[in-house]
């Protein structure tokens, strides 16, 4: 029993045994490449195919329906080898006919031995190793970092399946090994040597006979010979380039995936060093609507994902010498530009909502008995060990705004200043500022800021943070507290409040507890430590 394939030649259907098909396919391929560059190639081939159909038609009858390898051999005997087809004044005598040369090896997916997509068996065939090992490598790489999965999927998409017999032969072809590359190289060098010698002798006779025709012809040969050697060097170079690019792509992908799925972190440099805060929380609190957020994040993912995928694909292509996929680069570029436009549009949209500044001030007079010492203390809302510099917190020192991961509200640091009152009246001015797309927006945003303070007899209690109402977006909200005190007022300052004090000439960050200050016409001065 033998498997047969149904083929059509010149509009006639034949049932052909598998081995016969392979032989016929190779034969036609060889003829095809023999006539490469000949203007009437298509016509000659269709003539030849018509004749083959005719010969085969003669060989089948009711008692013999299937074309066997003997029939194909008969066809080849009648038609002759490609080298007999003439037109070969361009080819050197003794040049190997493509019919006899080994098939070039190509990477295919193997549908017959596949478990998932046939990628591993295909790679196994390509490197001539047991596919089990390829599977092991893939599984290990997936378990370790997950990038193997990405590589697998890319290969699954871009590597063609070996559907026809010829493709299966190509898949199995001569294994690509280092010794093979070396052998090819030696062959090429040998060939080149011959060509140079040939050229030299031909050149001499050419000089004698002064035949220009010879000169140009063998000049071409020299160029071909050189380019053959160059090609091998180029192939080796491209292979290693591919390996480097692939590894870089893999490394970057791991970073990228971890940013997207595992530890969404954005880093910012400030005076305390590298700060990290979660990407999504930040985006959440800056963008106006969920749709905006989704669109922006998608745009961002495509924007950074496409170059990575193209990098992986480029590396794989160089390593396995896969021909370029039509339109792939174009499509990727187009998608990338679209993503760029999307992110830019939404970026501008966000930037626009920071366009106008607005402020909202509250003022209150304090009842103070002149002899009293005012105690300024902090009302603590933040955890006792909370430090703004801690990682996991979105912190811009210059904008004095923080967003902690566990709290869903945004807390900002107030800036507190102590000044002498020009008119001897003690008062507190709370100045809230914010940004907005319009002036009114900005003022509205400033109004919404929630900052608590209170007076208990001679104690002024300032909250250590201001709060934005739930759902409120970050619009560079800031709170400045100005405490105006009459000259001669003595003051103590709670140590918890120190970090929030603005610059005062005579107060250092590390002031001792219980230090007594006095308000003078030149601001605060230390009275007693």
């Amino acid at each position, binding site marked *: 029993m033998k498997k047969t394939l149904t083929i059509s030649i*010149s*509009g*006639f259907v034949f049932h052909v045994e598998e081995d016969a098909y392979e032989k016929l396919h190779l034969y036609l391929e060889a*003829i095809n490449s023999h*006539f490469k560059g*000949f*203007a*009437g190639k298509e*016509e*000659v081939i269709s*003539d*030849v195919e*018509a*004749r083959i*159909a*005719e010969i*085969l*038609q*003669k060989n089948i009858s009711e008692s013999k329906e299937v074309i066997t390898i003997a029939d194909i051999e008969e066809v080849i*005997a*009648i*038609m*002759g*080898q*490609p080298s*007999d*087809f*003439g*037109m070969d*004044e361009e080819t050197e*005598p003794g040049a190997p006919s493509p019919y006899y040369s080994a098939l070039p090896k190509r990477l295919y997916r193997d549908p017959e031995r596949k478990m998932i997509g046939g990628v591993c068996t295909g790679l196994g065939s390509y490197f001539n190793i047991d596919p089990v090992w390829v599977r092991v490598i893939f599984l290990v790489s997936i378990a370790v970092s997950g990038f193997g999965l990405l590589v697998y999927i890319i290969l699954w998409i871009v590597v063609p399946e070996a559907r026809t017999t010829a493709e299966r032969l190509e898949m199995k072809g001569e294994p690509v090994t280092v010794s093979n590359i070396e052998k090819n190289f030696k062959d090429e060098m040998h060939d080149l040597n011959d060509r140079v010698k040939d050229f030299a002798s031909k050149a001499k006779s050419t000089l004698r006979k002064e035949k220009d025709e010879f000169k140009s012809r063998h000049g071409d040969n020299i160029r071909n010979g050189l380019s053959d050697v160059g090609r091998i060097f180029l192939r080796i170079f491209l292979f290693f380039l591919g390996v480097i690019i692939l590894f870089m792509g893999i490394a970057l992908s791991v970073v990228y995936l971890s940013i997207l799925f595992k530890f969404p972190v954005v880093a910012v440099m400030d005076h305390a060093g590298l700060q990290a805060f979660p990407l999504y929380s930040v985006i959440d609190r800056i963008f106006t609507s969920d749709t905006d957020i989704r669109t922006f994040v998608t745009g961002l993912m495509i924007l950074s994902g496409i170059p990575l995928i193209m990098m992986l694909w480029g590396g794989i292509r160089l390593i396995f010498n896969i021909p370029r996929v039509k339109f792939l680069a174009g499509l990727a570029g187009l998608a990338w530009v679209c993503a760029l436009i999307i992110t830019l549009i939404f970026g501008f949209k966000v930037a626009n909502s920071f366009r106008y500044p607005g402020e909202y001030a509250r003022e209150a007079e304090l009842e103070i008995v002149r002899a009293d010492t005012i105690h300024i203390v902090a009302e603590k809302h933040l955890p006792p060990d909370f430090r703004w510099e801690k990682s996991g917190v979105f912190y811009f020192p210059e904008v004095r705004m923080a967003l902690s991961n566990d709290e869903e509200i945004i807390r900002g640091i107030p800036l507190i200043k102590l000044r002498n009152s020009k008119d001897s009246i003690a008062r507190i001015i709370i100045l809230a500022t914010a940004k907005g797309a319009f002036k009114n927006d900005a003022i509205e945003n400033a109004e919404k800021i929630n900052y608590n303070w209170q007076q208990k007899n001679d104690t002024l209690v300032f909250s250590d943070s201001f709060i934005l109402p739930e759902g409120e977006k970050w619009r560079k909200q800031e709170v400045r507290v100005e405490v105006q005190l009459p000259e001669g007022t003595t003051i103590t300052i709670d140590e918890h409040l120190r970090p929030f004090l603005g610059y005062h000439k005579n107060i250092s960050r590390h002031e001792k507890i219980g230090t007594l200050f006095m308000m003078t016409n030149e601001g605060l001065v230390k009275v007693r430590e």
Partner: protein
Amino acid sequence: MDIERNNAQMRKGALELCILSIVSREDAYASDIIEKLKSARLIVVEGTLYPLLTRLKNDGLLSYRWEESTQGPPRKYYRITESGQKVLDGMAQDWTELVGSVERLLKGKAVRL
């Protein structure tokens, strides 16, 4: 050293002449031409013929028409064109002259040997 190649080129020139001459007598299908060339021992396999026919056709020396066949695909029947006929006449004349001179020369050489 290049005897084989010279032979092939000589044969190729002669082949074109022979094909034109065969087709000029009556319209012919590739296999008919092959049969005649084979019996004249000018070619061995059919493959040789197809590129030559295509080239002669592309040069405008031959034209063809399709004819249905009881066996297999329709066949191309080649016919000589007017310019083909002229070329054939010229070539035939040249050939006769060439053969005459070459034979005279070869004979002379043989005599001298």
